[in-house]
């Protein structure tokens, strides 16, 4: 494989790891619960990029299935947590009531 691309991919993996460490810091020390949700969402999104880079460095296209799956799970988790913190329920049966 190309040596230049190898160096680029390893460098990007290191940079992405430090970004995810920053997210973990915000996820542990966030002042409110919403900060933690923001950090968790972004951690999931960065995990997608991480998996794509690992798939490149392993040179296998099978890992690319995981990318879309992790994205869908992170999105649903974000929406569910936000709705739970706002209203106390996730699936509203009576959408017109005010409580």
């Amino acid at each position, binding site marked *: 494989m190309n040596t230049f691309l190898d160096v680029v991919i390893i460098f*990007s993996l290191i940079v992405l790891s430090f970004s995810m460490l920053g*997210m973990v810091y915000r996820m542990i020390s966030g002042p409110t619960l919403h900060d933690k949700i923001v950090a968790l969402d972004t951690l999931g*999104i960065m995990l997608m990029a991480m998996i794509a880079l690992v798939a490149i460095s392993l040179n296998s296209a099978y890992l690319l299935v995981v990318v*879309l799956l992790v994205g869908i799970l992170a999105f649903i988790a974000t929406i569910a947590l936000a709705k739970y913190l706002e209203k106390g329920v996730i699936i509203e049966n009576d959408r017109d009531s005010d409580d």
Partner: protein
Amino acid sequence: MTSLIAFFILGGAFFSFVGAVGVIRLPDIYTRLQATTKSATLGVMMTMLGAFFYFWYTEGLIDTQLFLAVLFIFTTAPLGAHMIARSAFHADVEPYKLTILNELKRDETNPEDQIIGDTQRVQVQRKKDEDES
């Protein structure tokens, strides 16, 4: 082609790092959402486009799932950020103390202002002033 792939992957790593710095350094949740929603999403999209071009270049494989993931992030990142911001506002998370404009708070406390809008409100105010004078 190799330089294009390297450009996309390095740019993606750079924008993800900028997003992480923003999440650590910015003062409150509403500004942190800016960092994650714009910068980190662009970074991840660039990285995955790089992976898409890489597999196209080396194996001749056009991976539609990866392209679908890019479109999915592009659609859902603003949606998630909007939901979190609205949830934080309704859960009384305080904005940073230097915030000067809170449009959602203004619209929810004065519903009639929301209906007529800014320019019309100015016109109504002018007409009222003329009538008084």
